[in-house]
């Protein structure tokens, strides 16, 4: 495999590029996050560090701005997502509680109706027994 093949086909080069770009981006993000932390904790030291980089100073500021904006958007989006999820969870919980309350209420009412039906059944049975006894006495009298 010649160097021309490597570059021409783009096989190996493309592989290296694919590996390199995310790596460089990751390193840049890590450095930028470090600088942001430094600027937050001791602003003067952070500025001195950027100045000591020379031409990289403006690049550093740009990176901070870009990554900062990106992180803000990610954080904001993430926060919105979490808020939405919390709202959905609260709504679902309320729905489940409402369902539970309705179910409990229906269970109580059903038990009550069954108790009343049993009482009614017992009353009807008692009346039927009394009528039976009266009929029996009357038939005994008739027979007598």
């Amino acid at each position, binding site marked *: 495999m010649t160097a021309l093949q490597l570059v021409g086909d783009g096989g190996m080069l493309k592989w290296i590029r694919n590996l390199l770009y995310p790596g460089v981006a990751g390193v840049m993000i890590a450095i930028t996050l470090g600088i942001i932390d430094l600027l937050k904790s001791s602003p003067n030291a952070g500025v001195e560090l950027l100045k000591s980089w020379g031409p990289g100073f403006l690049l550093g500021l740009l990176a901070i701005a870009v990554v900062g904006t990106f992180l803000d958007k990610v954080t904001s989006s993430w926060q919105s997502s979490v808020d939405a999820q919390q709202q959905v969870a609260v709504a679902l919980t309320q729905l489940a509680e409402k369902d539970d*309350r309705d179910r*409990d*209420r229906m*269970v*109580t*009412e059903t*038990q*009550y*109706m069954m*108790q009343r039906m049993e009482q009614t059944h017992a009353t009807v049975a008692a009346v039927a027994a009394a009528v039976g006894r009266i009929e029996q006495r009357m038939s005994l009298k008739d027979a007598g």
Partner: protein
Amino acid sequence: MGTDVELLKQLRGSILMLVNNRHVAQQSRADHILLWRMLQDLRFSIGESELITICQDLADRGFLKYEESRDKDQHGRPTTRVSLYKLQLTPAGRDLCEGTTSNPAIYI
């Protein structure tokens, strides 16, 4: 008048039975709004204040107990409206529901 008294006795018994059923099923203690709704579901024609009066009567008789709070208006001042929470039977109320005792003023 006679019918009103009979209905009142029936209502007292029904309230005690409903509260007892929730206790037996280990459900949360009802407030008067839930009790009111259950009575309406069971076709009892009763107003909210009337229900509160009956609950107070049952408490006076020693069959029912609850926590009471006076509602407040938008300025935080107490109003005449009362709410009853955590309704539950006393041991005497449970005896009544279980048929261990009876009371001529209450139809169980």
